[in-house]
């Protein structure tokens, strides 16, 4: 519990630095590219386009989901999924990638995963704008349900941060972890209901319920319930409780490992 407190204190104490470094990293990364930061948004749009062709037009024949056009339904989920997927993948390398500089200076290492998360937010806002636009064009009304967005945004950040601090530490300790995570996330795209509707699928109901325990599903489904005005947070008390339990478990283990081993990171470099 103490380590969770230490890590969180370091995040909030260095919030300004986290934002400055992430902004700088973004600019530095795309500096030599003609299209620059546009790639941050072009890349996912191409990806989403392909998924729409395959899963929306191809497999589903562009049928709607609960009366909402597939593209709007998918984009809402995909924007959250892409953010979580990219953040988790990149943050797992955040500490190993900066060992060259932290090996010669004192630095609050626990902020590095947050830097990655913050820099991914730029792409997220852009994707979310595209998604909301598609929702509005589809004729779905804006309701009070949309306010739930703020809650699910906090959920998304909390879960991503817990995973990020855990993954970044694990990658330093065991390099193989990064590949394990990558493989799991690749499968998660399909199992988390980001591109196809779990409830409307032909899967056995027990299996669907099992897949719905996934915290990523909770966030994706939550966004959909907010923007498509389809359900409220407290209608699913059990799912909410389970989500926060899983997030807390990962956070406690991640922070503990991080605080325990961070002094030795340089020895392991």
């Amino acid at each position: 519990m103490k380590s969770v407190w230490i890590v969180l204190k370091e995040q909030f104490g260095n919030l300004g630095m986290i934002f400055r470094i992430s902004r700088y990293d973004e600019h530095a990364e795309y500096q030599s590219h003609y299209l620059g930061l546009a790639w941050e948004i072009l890349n996912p749009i191409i990806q989403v386009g392909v998924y729409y062709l395959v899963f929306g037009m191809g497999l589903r024949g562009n049928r709607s989901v609960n009366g909402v056009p597939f593209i709007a339904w998918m984009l809402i989920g995909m924007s959250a999924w892409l953010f979580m997927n990219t953040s988790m993948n990149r943050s797992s390398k955040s500490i190993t990638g900066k060992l060259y500089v932290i090996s010669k200076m004192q630095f609050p290492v626990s902020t590095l995963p947050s830097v990655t998360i913050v820099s991914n937010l730029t792409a997220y806002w852009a994707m979310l704008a595209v998604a909301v636009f598609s929702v509005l064009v589809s004729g779905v009304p804006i309701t009070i349900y949309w306010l739930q967005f703020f809650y699910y945004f906090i959920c998304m950040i909390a879960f991503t941060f817990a995973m990020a601090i855990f993954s970044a530490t694990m990658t330093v300790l065991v390099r193989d972890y990064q590949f394990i995570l990558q493989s799991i996330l690749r499968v998660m795209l399909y199992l988390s209901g980001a591109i196809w509707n779990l409830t409307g699928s032909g899967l056995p109901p027990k299996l669907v319920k099992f897949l719905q325990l996934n915290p990523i599903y909770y966030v994706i489904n939550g966004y959909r319930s907010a923007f498509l005005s389809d359900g409220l947070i407290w209608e699913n008390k059990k799912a909410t409780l389970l989500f926060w339990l899983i997030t807390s478990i990962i956070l406690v283990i991640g922070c503990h490992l991080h605080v325990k081993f961070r002094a030795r990171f340089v020895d392991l470099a």
Partner: protein
Amino acid sequence: MDDTVKIRARLITKEYDMYKTRADKVKAMLSVHKGKAPDFWALKGVSLEVHSGEALGIIGINGSGKSTFSNIISGIIPPTSGDLEIHGDVSIIAIGAGLKGELTGLQNIRVKALMSGMTNQEIDEIIQPVIDFADIGAFIDQPVKSYSSGMRSRLGFAIAVHQHPDILVVDEALSVGDSTFYEKCMEKMDEFKSEGKTIIFISHALAQVEQFCDKVLWMHYGDVREYGDTEEVLTHYRTFTGRFNNLSKKEKRAYQNEAKHKQAVFTLDDLYAREKAESSLPRPVSDAELKQLCARNSIGDPMSKTTWFFLIAMILAALALGTEMVRSPKPLKSALPAPTAVVQTIATETPSRPWKI
């Protein structure tokens, strides 16, 4: 000039496990009981007090533990045992250290300054002085990997001194610069000294040490061989190196091997016995405190009982809840009539509007 202690190191040791693979290393870190890995003690109980405004030179032949010690007092690597107090910000300069090869000189300045917590405005203020000080011309916009070792150390030094540290550790970084740059650095370091900042200067160039340092620490295979006034220690060190260099190759090897062997078989109990017989600490300590100083520092705290309890409780709760949710006959999402109906009405009212990209 005030006489506050800036660095107090007491019986610092550093053990390196000579594992062959990373996997062994991680396994040893995770397990409570240490396996029988070959050890190497880079430091065997170094004590030291440095005051503000003092310039301390660290000398010693290769492999004596100078760099290990400087990394420990910079807070970069943790000591295996012993106690370290540092009052102030430390900035360390080693040859080409902490610079990323793919980034340009300018980008490196920014990244290092950002990571030390400076705001963009502060960075904009120091960036020109850093460039002027480094004086590497148009190379500032080139990737650091194309730099010569001299240029790297110039840039490293320029960045470090502009971060306004209280304690500056210079680890052989000036040995690759030319005399003009060396003079410039010396000027800067004198300026620091007069401001009451502490400088730790690690070098093989005895003339530089003689010129600049008030006190000298002579390290010898992980031990403090001598600590005192510059002139005295340097005289002894010169005598030693003179004698050592006159030895035949075979004798040199035998001498080194013996010292290395001692570093391999060293234990913390030896340190305790040594200190008990004759204390090397500047201030006497009680027996209990000495025992604590000679005990291995724990690698972070183990998980507390409360945390364990909470963690296990949370895992059990999550498992129970998960099972319950899968077993319950009710579908997870309860169908809400009102808003869903709204959506459906709208969807049915405008069925002829196919979505197009």
